[in-house]
């Protein structure tokens, strides 16, 4: 009698705990899937604004090298020294643009870190690791019951399986519960920060990069005309090279547009994720948002790769 109540009391307590915890929201597989998709969709987004800045720096340097061809050189005069000086400062500015791009990349790397952290937060690893030990406990208990039944000529039921389920269930549900609470908390706290950061990206590209790209295009066109007029004729190699500069400029403009629209999509997808986690609503909305975001970032990455 006493033995039986000794077994049933902790079992009841654990089941009670499970029941109580089950009353609270735990992560659903579809929520986990969407968090994972969000992380996957945003991978590599952070590098887009940096790539635009980097491309600006490359084209600006090319433009300045093209300007050097506008000099007329004579032995003994200082024009060659001046040309060297121009090339040196062009290289220096290029390095500065590259450094600025790197800083933007580093600042936005946090978006990848954040998305990865969310994936870790929803990971199934913690609960899955409980399976093995829970099964081992169950088997051992059944073994003990078998021995007891044989020794005392009893027919106690095997509770190993139930006990394993309790260990696995209680531990698993506890972790799942904690994961849900923290996921909601972090996504909620991060949302205004994501909003600010993605708006920073939009402002950076729209106000500080895109208008200058247009002026840079005008600069390259001017330099082409100057070079053509100065040399009276241009060889095919020069023309092809200048044409490549125009291609890069077009690419930078496309990438700038993609970085801006992806920033907007990132913000919207995160907002949808936050609302879904908060309201327990169906995932249709967030799935759509993340799908659009994934397409945007994928297209932008493809564009970026084209110019690498």
């Amino acid at each position, binding site marked *: 009698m006493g033995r*039986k109540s000794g077994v049933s009391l902790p079992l009841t307590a654990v089941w009670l705990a499970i029941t109580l915890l089950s009353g609270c929201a735990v992560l659903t597989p579809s929520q986990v899937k969407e968090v994972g998709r969000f992380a996957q969709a945003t991978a590599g987004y952070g590098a887009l604004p940096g790539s635009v800045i980097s491309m600006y720096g490359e084209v600006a340097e090319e433009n300045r090298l093209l300007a050097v061809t506008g*000099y007329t050189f004579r032995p003994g005069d200082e024009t060659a020294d001046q040309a060297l000086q121009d090339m040196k400062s062009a290289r220096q500015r290029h390095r500065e643009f590259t450094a600025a791009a790197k800083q933007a990349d580093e600042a936005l790397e946090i978006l990848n870190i*954040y998305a990865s952290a969310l994936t870790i937060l929803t990971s199934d690893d913690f609960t899955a690791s409980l399976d093995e*030990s829970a099964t081992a406990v169950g088997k051992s*208990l059944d073994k003990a019951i078998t*021995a*007891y039944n044989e020794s005392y*000529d009893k027919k106690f039921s095997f509770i190993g399986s139930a006990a394993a389920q309790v260990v696995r269930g209680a531990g698993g549900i506890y972790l799942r519960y904690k994961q849900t609470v923290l996921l909601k908390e972090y996504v909620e706290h991060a949302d205004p920060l994501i909003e600010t950061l993605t708006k920073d990206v939009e402002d950076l590209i729209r106000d500080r990069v895109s208008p200058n790209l247009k*002026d840079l295009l005008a600069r390259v066109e001017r330099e082409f005309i100057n070079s053509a007029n100065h040399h009276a004729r241009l060889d095919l190699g020069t023309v092809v090279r200048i044409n490549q500069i125009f291609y890069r400029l077009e690419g930078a403009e496309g990438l700038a547009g993609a970085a801006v629209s992806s920033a907007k999509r990132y913000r919207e997808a995160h907002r949808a994720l936050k609302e879904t986690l908060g309201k327990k609503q169906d995932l249709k909305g967030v799935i759509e948002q993340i799908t659009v975001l994934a397409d945007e970032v994928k297209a932008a990455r493809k564009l970026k790769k084209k110019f690498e």
Partner: protein
Amino acid sequence: MNTEIKNALIMVREAEKLVDEARQDPDLTEKQRNNLQTIYALLLDIDDQLVLQDLQQGIDKLKQDSNRLATLANKIPQEVERWKKVAEAVQIAAKGVGTLADILAKALSAGLLGIPAEFRARRSRKGTQRKRC
């Protein structure tokens, strides 16, 4: 865009256009044209520096806001570490129960925890009256 930088860029770019037009004059001497080329190159350098300054301001804002998100994101791995400890503790406890059950099973099989035969027989008879399992 910063207003001062914007105004400076407008002036520099206007100057670039004027110098560009001037250097196209076919009546210029070689020296005059080279001088205009040097001025033009200098203007391009100023243009690039102004763009860089403006970009830097935007990037500084980006860095500042990114640090705020970093503070939050860095807390997540710390939480995860705490969970791992919980999961490990549950596993250790589970293994402990398993080991105890094994010892018990072995001890019972070996008769180490057995009870005298007459007591066993008496309990066995009584057990038939209150068998519940």
